[in-house]
């Protein structure tokens, strides 16, 4: 005869897998939500995790050296093919360049003098930079994250904007002592901060938010525009410095096209990025000089 206890043990064994499954599910839900919230809060990682990330980053840096070698080889061959065309374009640009340089010099000195008169130390457009090497890129397509080799020891903080070779590419999302993570503007992360941008169109500036990335056209989508001004293809887009995290006048790209959004109420502007979002070995982290008024 089977005892009651035996039946209970048997029953428990058949249910054991379900119970373990449930516990695992609860643990996973907890840890994903907790770490995701923690990441969005933007504090520096706690000590053990920071050490772990720095250590892995160090090993990864060693591994990346031969791979970077191959990558630079491939890209230099690529560049060789484009050289002739690029040379023609650059020559055309160069004609007006000298005039621009002297003009720029004049503006700079004039700006400096005017600032002195106003007792201004830091305006929205002044910033300092930290240069960092890219160690790795997250192999997960959806969280488009770069790991770079500068961390809180070098003054990097969460939410600082990051520039590629020519323009804005992303922002810092997580900081460890010796390494940090940069989220690219191509990522489809829902909870990330959006960059406030302005579009220079024939003298007048239109403000908006850099909200999304479109894989089909390889362009950023700017929406929530401040004015209904007509915008042309080729208008310059840069950060506006509003919002407190990024300085003004970081180059983002040029306007590709203007479309109405799916409700037909608002306009969406497609912007061709200035910086290459795939070929990055060195990035610049931007530190805004003006304090945000919090």
């Amino acid at each position: 005869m089977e005892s009651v206890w035996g039946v209970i043990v048997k029953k428990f064994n058949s249910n054991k897998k379900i119970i373990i499954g449930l516990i695992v599910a609860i643990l996973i839900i907890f840890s994903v939500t907790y770490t995701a919230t923690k990441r969005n809060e933007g504090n520096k990682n706690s000590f053990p995790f920071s050490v772990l990330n720095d250590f892995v980053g160090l090993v990864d840096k060693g591994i990346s050296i031969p791979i970077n070698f191959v990558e630079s080889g491939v890209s230099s061959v690529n560049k060789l093919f484009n050289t002739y065309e690029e040379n023609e374009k650059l020559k055309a640009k160069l004609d007006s360049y000298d005039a621009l340089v002297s003009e720029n010099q004049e503006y700079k000195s004039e700006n400096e003098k005017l600032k002195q008169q106003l007792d201004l130390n830091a305006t929205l457009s002044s910033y300092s930079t930290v240069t960092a090497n890219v160690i790795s890129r997250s192999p997960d397509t959806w969280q488009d994250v770069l790991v770079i080799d500068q961390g809180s020891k070098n003054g990097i903080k969460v939410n600082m904007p990051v520039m590629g070779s020519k323009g804005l590419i992303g922002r810092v999302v997580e900081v460890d002592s010796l390494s940090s993570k940069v989220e690219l503007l191509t990522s489809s992360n829902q909870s990330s901060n959006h960059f406030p941008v302005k579009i220079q169109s024939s003298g007048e500036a239109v403000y908006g938010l850099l909200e999304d990335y479109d894989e089909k056209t390889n362009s950023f989508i700017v929406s929530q525009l401040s004015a209904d001004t007509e915008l042309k293809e080729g208008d310059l887009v840069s950060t506006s410095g509003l919002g407190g995290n990024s300085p003004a006048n970081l180059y983002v790209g040029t306007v590709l096209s203007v479309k109405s959004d799916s409700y037909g109420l608002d306009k969406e502007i497609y912007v061709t990025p200035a910086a290459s979002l795939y070929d990055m070995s060195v990035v610049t982290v931007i530190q805004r000089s003006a304090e945000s008024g919090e």
Partner: protein
Amino acid sequence: MLKEKRIPFWLPIVLFLIMLVDGQFTRLFGSINENQSFMHFHLLLLIMIVFLPLYKRRDAVLTAFFLGLIYDFYYLGIVGIWSLCLPVFVSLQYVIFEQVETTPFTILLSFILSVTLIESISFLMQVIFQLITGKFIFFITGVLGPTILLNVVLFIFFIFPLLKIFRRSKK
């Protein structure tokens, strides 16, 4: 019989290094094809399929869990995605290779199955937790398709050297 063997201490370290190599190669492929499609390099999975079923199941699952944890911390900063995927994947290998013999063909089938499974779970989890705005069509055409294609090529390159090592370590 074979599964009583403990995992030697160097195997997790090798797997960890291969995980980082995978990441670097994924970056390389991304920059070569200019992010038109995303091919993920999964050498780690292939090696785990071939070697881990030689060892004790609990050891293997634990190794997979810790590797997944490091992956989550280092690459994503969000814990619980790969640290779930990898142990599930390893357990699945034990289920599969209890029933079928380890031949190149069965390894290929299991490999394709695992790649599909891992890519899908990690995508779906991030959509469910609203970490990303998931574009399902793009996931199929831009990520899953190219990834499987690349990994079949990877398999052809690596399977015979790996099996050679496998036979030697089985003795």
